[in-house]
């Protein structure tokens, strides 16, 4: 298994820059998520790591060996495609055996490896069937089989669950995770689904417009987003922003917006101009006594919780509250925020201001 190091990786397609100078490490055995909206450069990054695209500049190391200009086949990696890319003119067994045959492995050994893999994935009974008749999930298993049969240094997966329907995606996600914990193979996984990324990833890298926005473990990224984009992209509903204007001084623990004062973690940075106070929906409580006033606009019932949409003078806010709380649409009430979870953003740069609370997470990046 392998450690992967990416240094200043950049890719241009003509005048369009798909990936701007990215640098990050994937540790040995990690389940690594490349997360971002479509067109953010995550797939291009993965394809460069796999050798399906050549980088414009920058370097890629797999186990300290530079592979930037090497052919895909020489990198000893496996790739799982979104639409599986199983060879339709071969049956399941041949599909799984294909990479081994290309390496010139003896027939007998190939058959043995294939049956081992089929056993791991629970597809022994499918070996002789044709690809055309398989369900999406079984195709996905065969595609995984073709990847793991070679015992490569790393697995690269490009939205492998994207082609499955929602119900089955859950199931395959847990199958993938248990497979990963059993094999402990370095895996780089591209997805645009933030839930999938947080659910499965050991580490997440969030990309936007070809730029790495943030890099870290899921909880850190969720709790302490480095940019407004990350704050907005992760979480459903996403982080709320209360928009204000003024000065935020270093060491201040309060921000004053019109008549309202909001407590925030002690700041270690100073800024002046437009800012946004970011708070997660679950860190907002309905409190009639609070000074931040609002009008309830709508409620969505979600079983154990409900999402309350409220209008404040600083913008619309969504709060996640217990579903047994009685909330009347149209009512006037107040919102109290859990102050030590708040991040303040400079709207001009889109970046989070450093505070005592997020310093530890954001200082290194």
């Amino acid at each position, binding site marked *: 298994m392998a450690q992967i190091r990416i240094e200043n990786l950049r890719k241009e397609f003509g005048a369009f820059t798909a990936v701007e100078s990215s640098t990050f490490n994937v540790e040995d055995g990690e389940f690594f998520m490349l997360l971002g909206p479509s067109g953010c450069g995550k797939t291009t990054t993965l394809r460069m790591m796999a050798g399906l695209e050549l980088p414009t500049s920058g370097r890629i190391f797999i186990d300290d060996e530079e592979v930037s200009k090497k052919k895909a086949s020489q990198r000893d990696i496996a790739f799982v495609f979104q*639409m599986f890319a199983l060879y339709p003119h071969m049956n399941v067994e041949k599909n799984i055996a294909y990479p081994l045959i290309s390496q010139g492995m003896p027939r007998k050994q190939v058959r043995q490896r294939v049956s081992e893999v089929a056993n791991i994935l629970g597809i022994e009974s499918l070996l002789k069937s044709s690809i055309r008749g398989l369900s999406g999930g079984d195709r996905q298993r065969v595609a995984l089989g073709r990847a793991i049969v070679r015992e490569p240094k790393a697995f690269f997966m490009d939205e492998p669950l994207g082609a499955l329907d929602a119900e089955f995606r859950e199931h395959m996600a847990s199958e993938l995770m248990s497979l990963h914990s059993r094999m402990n193979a370095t895996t780089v996984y591209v997805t645009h689904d933030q839930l999938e990324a947080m659910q499965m990833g050991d580490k997440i890298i969030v990309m936007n417009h070809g730029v790495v926005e943030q890099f870290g473990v899921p909880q850190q990224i969720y709790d302490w987003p480095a940019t407004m984009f990350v704050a907005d992209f992760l979480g459903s509903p996403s982080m709320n922003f209360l928009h204000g204007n003024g000065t935020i001084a270093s060491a201040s623990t309060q921000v004053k917006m019109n008549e309202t004062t909001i407590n925030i973690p002690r700041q270690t940075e100073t800024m002046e101009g437009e800012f946004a106070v970011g708070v997660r929906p679950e860190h907002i409580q309905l409190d009639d006594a609070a000074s931040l006033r609002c009008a309830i606009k709508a409620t969505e019932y979600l079983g154990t919780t409900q999402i309350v949409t409220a209008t404040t003078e600083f913008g619309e806010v969504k709060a996640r509250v217990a579903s047994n709380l009685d909330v009347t649409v149209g009512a006037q009430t107040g919102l109290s925020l859990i102050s030590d979870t708040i991040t303040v953003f400079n709207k001009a740069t889109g970046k989070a201001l450093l505070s005592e609370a997020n310093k530890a997470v954001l200082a290194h990046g």
Partner: protein
Amino acid sequence: MNFSVTEPSVRTKWFAGITVVLYGLITIIPLLWIIATGFKTSEDAISYPPKVVFKPTLEGYVNLFTTRTRVNQDELEDLPPPETWYEQLVRDRGQVIASPSRYGERFLNSLIIGFGSTALCMVLGTAAAYAFSRFRLPLKDDLLFFILSTRMMPPIAVAIPIFLMFKNLGLSDTHLGMIMLYTAVNLSLSVWLLKGFIDEIPVEYEEAALIDGYTRFQAFYKVVLPQAATGIASTAIFCLIFAWNEYAFAVLLTSGNAQTAPPFIPTIIGVGGKDWPAVAAGATLFLVPVMVFTVLLRKHLLRGITFGAVRK
């Protein structure tokens, strides 16, 4: 009673069935007439009213493959007895076989040129279509348009330049020349058709193969080719039919050596009266290779024509 929306009613089924049969008959009757004429005597072939029921004879086929001279009764009696059934057949008509005709040779030329140009066209066409489909090429769209534009006028419009060119290059009346000519004419069509088929094959298949340790060329012939087989087969049929039936260039550019069957068949008419059964026999035999080829690839052809119509 069946109220299904998708199942046609009995009346619709009958109507559709009868239409198909009628259309089939209209299409096939001229063909059957040619085949039948090949087995008639010269008199039956031009009799009026036309004979539907007749006594079949192989005279047309014998005439097709031989040249004969007329001899008078005395000379005929002096000859040794005929050794073969076809010699007998000819003598019954007061003739003797002078030599074999050149039909066999012409037919062989047709096979060499027709299948040769089709094969060449498929090799070049698939390679070009693959490049157009998969690689970022400078001026790709312009090149594709340029290739198509060679089909915007009838090929025969450039007959004179081609005639002069062939003469200067020593390609006139050679197999190679005709193969190259038919390939050039067919290539634009095959590049366009094949590009469509190859576009339909997801590029991920090749990428998977590249990662699995195959070279680009191996990925091409082990993964792309088997999947493009349908497209290649149907394109090959179109190319073969053109090259096989081409008449005008064949008349213009071939004579003694590389002449194909289409310009040869009408020349039968000029030799010793209008021998329609021989012409019909020549046409019938000429049909066989294309028919065999098409029947062999029929499965692919049907799939090829509807390829890409429905997203799988």
